């Protein structure tokens, strides 16, 4: 919204601060001047304003002038417009408010013999032309310019009808279902029974508070005019405007609450401008009010205000005295409130201010004591309050799972994965592909796009999109993870769960001039998963997979290069190579490893508490076993056989190497098993070691391995 300081100053004689200072003082009181553009010698400045929606009363010149008057304690010039005495009318112009729940006031003034044309100089000089030129507001016809001027001056919408096009008097009513109206924008509209219209006795003339009608608009041929200045209910206007997809200056104001008392003033202002080109007023102003609305706006009950409450909420000021009765009285009076002292309700509050405050008709946002307290703080100046700190309360409580989330994050970071934040949404197709519980995907009612049609049931779609984004930009080494919420359930009840998604492609994270990188493989990713899981106290944790035909492996994973993670009897995640079908569909030629861990299940387990064990002082002895195995026997079988030996001195065993060569049978592979023996209390003797070795050989042989010779 644009404001001229020259126009403001016309309401504020005695305003001595310059435009820059005025801009700053207004801004610090919440009447924000976003831009201040000097217009040249003697023309003042143009302010670009940004006023919050609750202060619709200040979205015009007079409203801002009122704020300035309050800030500087200056008198504000009253809005009064002298009109020539009307010529008598045979009978008052008929006005009836049928929709008493939607229209609070309707004023109608009849002007006859007017000349529609260029706006002339007006009684107080040439403000219309001067102000409009500075505002770059186009001059159109005097009837239109007049309503625009009243809008810019005082924020009251008005409308001028060509009186000769009206059939009978005015009725403010609800539209009839299917009734038609061509509005000023040239659009033929079919009305709804909820629409509020200004009508004559035969037809709808205008969408009340939103837009006038085409057939009754002012033209250069118009001789007789009816000036409407009214007050419509915010909700009624809002509904009508919404239904017709219209947002006009008028609807903006009425939706946020106009000033019930401004209608006759604005009517006089519009009439004065129009009559400068000739013509006369016929009859007195017809003014119909709905009492119920008056009680809710212009004649609201006074509200109580206590100085003690002002101080309780606002606290200390830089000035040691704090907010006093004089400040409260001064600020509220300047804003248009009426203050009457009232005796204190309780003896202990005596000596402090207690008021009954009447509220100005233009400030519908003021309803409660707290609203008045805010006004006092605002006009006094927020930055004049002290900076204090409240006394320290109770102890700080961390979220129960915050530590667990941090543990997962730290493992992923240490493994060289960058943290990413992906979209909360995915396409319905990706949702169906990745939902851990088939079919439980929640669609949005107004999605941002088709690709974002559902709430993500998994972090996999977002992860795939981000990996593809990197690979398509020739960033070949990708390691990403995301800690985020995934959504299940239905549109009746949405369930949210924390999840960890990760993806990797390219080489392992080593930045080196001397060593070449190694392409990342399944077991690199499995290692990261194991490390994440190792942060929790796991019972019965294992990895498994299912044959493709079982249909149990998620469709986004390669059925034979993927693993399910099970802990405590529950699936806690899946990971592996992206299914070649999905890779092809996304035009990914590199091997992409991807997975997801269901953190809600992981968080059920306590974090692992490290427990120190005595380090043996005796020499460990390593023995290697070169085994040959059938391809059908996985490492897990050997691993389990070793565990079941229960030899306390067998402190560690691991795969040292896995290889295949032509000297082995066709479906065989070789595995070098390394075992470490160590006792807590002695050096192991050769005979003991020989016995252990024999037991290991026996166990792995039973498991299906043969010793390589």
């Amino acid at each position, binding site marked *: 919204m644009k404001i001229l300081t020259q126009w403001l100053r016309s309401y504020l004689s005695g305003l001595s601060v310059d435009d820059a200072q005025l801009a700053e003082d207004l801004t610090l009181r919440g009447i924000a001047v976003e831009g201040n553009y000097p217009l040249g010698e003697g023309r003042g400045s143009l302010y670009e304003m940004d006023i919050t*929606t609750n202060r619709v009363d200040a979205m015009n010149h007079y409203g801002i002038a009122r704020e300035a008057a309050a800030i500087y304690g200056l008198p504000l010039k009253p809005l009064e417009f002298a009109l020539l005495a009307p010529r008598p009318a045979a009978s008052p112009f008929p006005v009836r408010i049928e929709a008493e729940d939607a229209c609070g006031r309707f004023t109608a003034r009849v002007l006859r013999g007017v000349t529609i044309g260029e706006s002339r100089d007006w009684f107080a000089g040439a403000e219309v032309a001067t102000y409009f030129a500075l505002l770059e507001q186009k001059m159109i016809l005097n009837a239109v310019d007049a309503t625009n001027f009243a809008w810019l001056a005082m924020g009251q919408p008005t409308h001028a009808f060509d009186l000769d096009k009206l059939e009978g008097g005015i009725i403010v009513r609800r539209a009839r279902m299917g009734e038609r109206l061509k509005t000023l924008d040239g659009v033929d509209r079919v009305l709804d029974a909820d629409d509020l219209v200004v009508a004559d006795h035969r037809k709808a003339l205008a969408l009340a508070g939103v837009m006038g009608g085409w057939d009754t608009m002012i033209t250069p041929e118009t001789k007789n005019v009816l000036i409407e200045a009214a007050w419509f209910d915010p909700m009624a206007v809002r509904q009508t405007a919404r239904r017709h997809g219209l947002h006009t200056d008028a609807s903006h104001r009425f939706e946020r609450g106009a000033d019930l008392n401004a209608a006759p003033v604005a009517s006089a202002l519009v009439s004065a401008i129009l009559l400068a080109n000739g013509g006369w007023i016929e009859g007195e102003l017809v003014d119909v009010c709905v009492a119920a609305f008056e009680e809710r706006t212009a004649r609201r009950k006074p509200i109580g205000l206590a100085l003690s409450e002002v101080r309780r909420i606002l606290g200390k000021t830089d000035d040691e005295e704090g907010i006093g009765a004089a400040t409260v009285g001064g600020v509220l009076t300047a804003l248009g409130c009426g203050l009457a002292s009232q005796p204190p309700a309780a003896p202990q509050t005596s000596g402090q201010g207690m008021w009954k405050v009447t509220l100005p008709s233009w400030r519908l946002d003021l309803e409660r004591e707290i609203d008045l307290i805010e006004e006092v703080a605002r006009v006094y100046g*927020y930055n004049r*309050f002290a900076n204090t700190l409240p006394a320290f309360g109770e102890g700080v409580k961390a979220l129960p799972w915050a530590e667990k989330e941090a543990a997962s994050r730290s493992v992923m970071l240490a493994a060289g994965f960058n943290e990413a934040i992906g979209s909360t949404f995915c396409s319905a197709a990706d949702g169906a592909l990745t939902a851990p519980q088939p079919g439980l995907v929640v669609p949005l009612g107004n999605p941002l796009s088709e690709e974002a049609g559902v709430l993500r049931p998994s972090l996999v779609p977002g992860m795939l999109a981000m990996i593809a*984004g990197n690979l398509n930009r020739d960033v070949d080494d990708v390691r990403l993870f995301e800690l985020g919420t995934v959504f299940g359930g239905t549109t009746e009840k949405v369930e949210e769960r924390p999840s960890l998604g990760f993806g990797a492609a390219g080489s392992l994270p080593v930045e080196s001039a001397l060593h070449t990188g190694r392409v990342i493989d399944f077991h690199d990713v499995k290692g990261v998963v194991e490390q994440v899981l190792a942060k929790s106290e796991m019972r019965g944790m294992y990895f498994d997979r299912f044959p493709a035909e079982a249909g149990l492996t998620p469709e986004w994973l390669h059925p034979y290069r993927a693993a399910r993670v099970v802990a405590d009897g529950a699936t806690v995640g899946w990971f592996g190579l992206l299914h070649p079908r999905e890779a092809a569909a996304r035009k990914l030629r590199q091997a992409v490893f991807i997975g997801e861990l269901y953190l809600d299940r992981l968080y059920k387990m306590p974090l692992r508490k490290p427990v120190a064990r005595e380090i043996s002082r005796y020499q460990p002895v390593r023995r290697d076993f070169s085994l040959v195995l059938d391809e059908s026997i996985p490492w897990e079988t050997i691993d389990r056989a070793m565990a079941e030996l229960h030899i306390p001195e067998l402190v560690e065993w691991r795969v040292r190497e896995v290889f295949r060569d032509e000297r082995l049978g066709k479906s065989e592979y070789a595995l070098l098993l390394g075992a470490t023996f160590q006792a807590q209390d002695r050096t192991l003797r050769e005979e003991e070691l020989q016995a252990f070795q024999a037991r290991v050989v026996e166990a792995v042989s039973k498991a299906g391995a043969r010793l390589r010779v």
Partner: protein
Amino acid sequence: MANEAIPNLTAFDEAALEKAFTALEAQARSDAASLEKEPFRLKWLGRKQGLLNEVSDQWLKAAPPEAKKSVGQRFKTLKELAEGLLEQASGAGPTDASLKAEAIDITLPGTQRLTGAEHPITRTMNEIVAVFAALGYSVGVGPEVETDFYNFECMNFPPGHPARDTQDTLVVANQERKPLRDRLLLRTHTSPVQMRTMEQQPPPVRIVIPGKVHRNDAADATHSPIFHQVEGLCVDTNITFSDLKGTLDHAMKALFGSSVKTRFFPSFFPFTEPSADVQISCIFCGGKGCRKCKDSGWIELLGCGMVDPAVFAFAAEKQPAYDAKKISGFAFGMGVERIAMMKYGISEIGSLFAGDMRFLGQFA
């Protein structure tokens, strides 16, 4: 350095012993000339794998009883020799020329095990939360899919209120048949967690709420339909507007440096009154005016205010202690993206959500 083992001794007659020990003595002298003190000590006198240890282990132990005395004496002599030679070995050391031959290019970059980078949003959120944790604030969270009641109604956005227009909302499908307050939507701010917390816990409350929020906004350089907020709420007896000012002034100084100044402007939020926008003096130019602050010297950073009595009235339905006549409180909220973008010089908000390794890697 692997030690060459001592030869196996099969005969223990005097001649064989003489030959074997003489060879070792010659070896010791030659080593003393070529080796530095420490390698010499390790090779000969090392506790576990030193040659003397091996002699004692293998020769002395293996010697038949009649030869034990002779072996023992010769061992003692050899040991004294080695100990004496150790002193001499210290002086000489390897020549500069021999060391120079081992030179490497130390200016080649070090081999780094690359660690991942925490997301700048996570990092910024953690920084903000830490500042308030030090002021006694606990962390609270809430669901990202909310009901109309928690997101709007109890935050004093009545049905049909124009303030709802300022927060274009993404809604869950198929909600039309439900009563308005039960309809599901993606929370447009972290404020609903204020109410969820108050319903659970009587005053005093001091929480800080980091979280993801969504709005149906068109994306541009500074707007994204996905973004993050940190919300704060402090409720107790005698919490004042000046406490709000002091708290945020302290927090901004903790986040951006002690020279930062704050400035409070009246603003409007349905759930606070009085409401304020907070600006900090420009962290780029120190308040002199620059491109980043549009020459104003100030940067707008957060919204805040005293908790509106209407919000307390909703809380009091479940926790009667939220009586606006007896307690008071303040709330504040800030956009994490804006702060992260400022702190780390990020120009496009979209880059925060694209998962580009080149972008994310900068925050390691």
